[in-house]
């Protein structure tokens, strides 16, 4: 475990307790009036100068949403959400779509600097200082409340044919692509929150990797909710054509506020023959305070379809934020020999609630999937893994392995595992394992005996517990994720 001393340094370097991303930025905002009706949707569509087909698509989603009821099957509890008490559009006042970084509001640049996401084309995500000159490049799309404020490295990406831009821009510049794929993985009426998102989504990222291209750098989107009383509804669409490869990272934070804010995103991934999409998330929305006041309701639909043979979609998530998380990144394994992966670490403390997991739907022959989920509950939180593995009758030779482990820290929290395993093909092979335990006394004793404080010992053991998942993250993110784990669990020991 070579990473250990570094990890401990990182842990020690985070001296600030609590949520350090909780500042808010004063930026003049263009807000839509509160409330949700057809006029709101027309207004959003008009502000974004959208074509008619998209407005119709939104209205269709809205009509579907009105007939649906909020789902309550997840193991989470919250006060009813007043959907009419939200702003559905919030954008920094400035002409939309700055031509270059020089045109971006300096306030905004300063905010991203503070978050450790410098929007300059030399830099990378914070966390790995001194990594030498060979720093990997990362293209960043920064989404601030409802709009994308900047996208870096677009030209170098364009040279190899990769399109990476805000989805609103893609609607304008690549309407055929968007129209072909938008809603093809998560249909407008898929579920309550997806329907809501389809009706009112404001921005998000769009990536298209053409045939045979290996995307030369990591793509990443950084989401920030800033305005008060807004909901954030972003939409991400990634298309990997045959033989292409892309790794995409997503990060998110929000200011510290006493009221709850709603975040209902939809992410759609499409992988054609031999294509690979790797999607990594570090979710760090404001989790609310120790008494459970405030925090983000993170109700997200993420789904990828392995449409082509031998395609692969891999989800990795580190979930430390949000008051409530409701999220099941899924893979539809349609192409023969396609592969789905889900690696997750979910940490809940204080009064956080997380109900998260995945769905692996095996349709094609010889499809295989791997699920590794690590849940850590502390404080008075509840942490649920909920997952589905379904083998359809034609999925000959399908294979799944699932490993779900839960770690409990303290006797006032809850850890739950709810897997659904369905097989309709005899040649399919499925294995599922789940364990729940606390940090063993002998492990703690071993560390304490060697001079580690109890808190450092717990961090060390937690990092070890999560290692299988963290090693799947791109390096910059892995470091950030380790720091986050340490900060999240601060004060939950003893």
């Amino acid at each position: 475990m070579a990473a250990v001393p570094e990890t401990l340094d990182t842990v020690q370097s985070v001296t600030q307790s609590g949520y350090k991303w909780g500042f808010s930025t004063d930026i003049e905002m263009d807000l839509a009036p509160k409330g949700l009706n057809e006029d709101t949707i027309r207004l959003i569509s008009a502000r974004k100068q959208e074509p008619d087909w998209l407005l119709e698509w939104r209205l269709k989603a809205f009509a579907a949403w009105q007939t649906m009821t909020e789902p309550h099957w997840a193991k989470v509890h919250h006060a009813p959400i007043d959907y009419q008490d939200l702003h559905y559009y919030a954008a920094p006042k400035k002409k939309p779509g700055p031509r270059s970084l020089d045109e971006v509001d300096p306030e905004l640049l300063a905010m991203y600097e503070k978050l450790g996401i410098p929007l300059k084309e030399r830099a990378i995500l914070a966390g790995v200082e001194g990594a030498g000159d060979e720093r990997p490049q990362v293209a960043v799309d920064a989404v601030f409340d409802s709009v994308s404020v900047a996208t870096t490295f677009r030209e170098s990406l364009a040279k190899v044919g990769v399109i990476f831009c805000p989805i609103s821009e893609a609607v304008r510049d690549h309407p055929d692509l968007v129209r072909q794929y938008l809603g093809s993985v998560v249909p407008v009426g898929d579920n309550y929150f997806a329907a809501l998102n389809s009706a009112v989504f404001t921005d998000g990222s769009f990536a298209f990797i053409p045939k045979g291209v290996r995307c030369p750098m990591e793509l990443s989107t950084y989401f920030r909710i800033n305005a008060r009383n807004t909901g954030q509804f972003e939409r991400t669409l990634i298309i990997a054509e045959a033989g292409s490869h892309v790794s995409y990272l997503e990060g998110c934070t929000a200011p510290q506020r006493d009221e709850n804010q709603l975040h209902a995103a939809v992410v759609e991934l499409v992988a054609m023959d031999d294509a690979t999409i790797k999607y990594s998330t570090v979710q760090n929305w404001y989790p609310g305070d120790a008494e459970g006041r405030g925090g983000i309701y993170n109700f997200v639909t993420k789904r990828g379809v392995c449409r082509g043979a031998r395609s692969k979609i891999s989800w990795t998530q580190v979930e430390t934020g949000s008051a409530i998380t409701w999220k099941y990144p899924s893979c539809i394994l349609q192409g023969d020999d396609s592969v789905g992966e889900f690696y997750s670490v979910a940490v809940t403390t204080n009064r956080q609630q997380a109900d998260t997991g995945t769905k692996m739907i095996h349709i094609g022959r010889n499809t295989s999937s791997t699920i590794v989920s690590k849940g850590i509950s502390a404080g008075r939180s509840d942490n649920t893994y909920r997952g589905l593995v379904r083998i359809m009758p034609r999925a000959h030779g399908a294979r799944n392995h699932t490993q779900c482990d839960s770690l409990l820290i303290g006797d006032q929290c809850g850890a739950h595992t709810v897997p659904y395993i369905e097989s309709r093909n005899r040649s399919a092979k499925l294995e599922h394992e789940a364990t729940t335990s606390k940090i063993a006394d002998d492990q703690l004793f071993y560390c304490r005996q060697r001079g580690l404080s109890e808190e450092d010992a717990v961090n060390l053991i937690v990092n070890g517990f999560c290692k299988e998942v963290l090693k799947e993250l791109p390096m910059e993110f892995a470091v950030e994720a380790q720091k986050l784990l340490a900060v999240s669990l601060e004060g939950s020991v003893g």
Partner: protein
Amino acid sequence: MSTRTKPPAPLEAVAGAFLARYEARPEHDATRARAAALFRAGGLPSPREEPWHYTTLRPLADAVFDAPPADPAPLLALLPDIAAARLIFAHGRFRADLSVLPTGITVRTGAPAWGRLARPAIEKLVALNTMLAEDGAEIEVAEGVDAGTLILASLATGGAFHPRHAIRLGRGARLTLLEVNIGTGAYLNNPVFSVSVADDANLTHLRIQTEAPDAFHLSTLYAEVGAHGTYDSFLLSLGGRLARMEVHARLAGEKSAAHLNAAQLLGGSQHADFTTVVTHDAPSTTSRQTVKNVLTGRSRGVFQGKIEVSRGAQKTDGYQMNQALLLSGEAEIDSKPQLEIYADDVKCSHGATVGELDPDQLFYLRSRGVPEAEARSLLVRAFLDEALDPITHDAARETMEGMIATWWEQQTP
């Protein structure tokens, strides 16, 4: 706008028929009336309810149970050949003439033994049972008595019946209860059991469900175990067109234990569902479950197993293993193992595997001269062994192994 009322959904019609039967009863005491009100409001379970996600009672709507019950005596020949006292119920009614009463055990029959654990407000089939129960056995083993083996058998040839049994073991008492369900024709057997095992007591409950191919078997069992007590059960589920065996076991006393092992062997278009909830409500309690499914034909097997650990139930040790062998292209297994944990110093785990017979193992046996059919049979038996192993009652185990062998012969043309 037309004001025509929608024709009732099929299951509502079935529920209506049960209610009509209740209305036709000569008397409506308070217990039944409360259950009837619950049943009238809630009806039968539907797949929209999470605990019934994988099992629909829809086939009940097409079933006819009105054949006049025939003489059940010939069915006695099918009972396991075990020398023990026997309580025989035919069509849900106690038959003293066919029974051999035990010594050292108090048995009361002639009225439903309500017990105190059933929850008609939560389990809809228990509301149905409570509303229509006519008879049942109240079995009581006094403190410190080792009562040996008792057979509790249900025989049927038709009709719908709802027996209600209560079993109570005093402190330090012991009993092996062999429950057998057999019959011919089409019928519905909807028993409810309330089992309390006092401190230091030990109940071994061996259950054989070999109902007739057209029968429905829907049973609900509640068990509560006191300190250092054990509820040790094994279920062999072979019969019925649709079977649902639901068990709620609560470990109420310190260091109590529950074993809920099962083997479900299904063929044709059978559907069987084994649903368990083990609640660890006291410190240092243990639960063990090994559940094996062997599925052929177009059958569908369901296993739902939930381990709940209450706040304060520290040092809980819960383990559950659920495995399925799919032997045909059209069989289906649905499995939902579940952990719900509110205490931190616990050791809980579950595992599930699904697959066909291992080709390597088959090859190994074939290459040593074992014919394919025999090799397959050997491997299936070996697969089931783990669930059967904990059975210490030799005669009962032999009987069950015989039933498994017969079943296997019927499956292989």
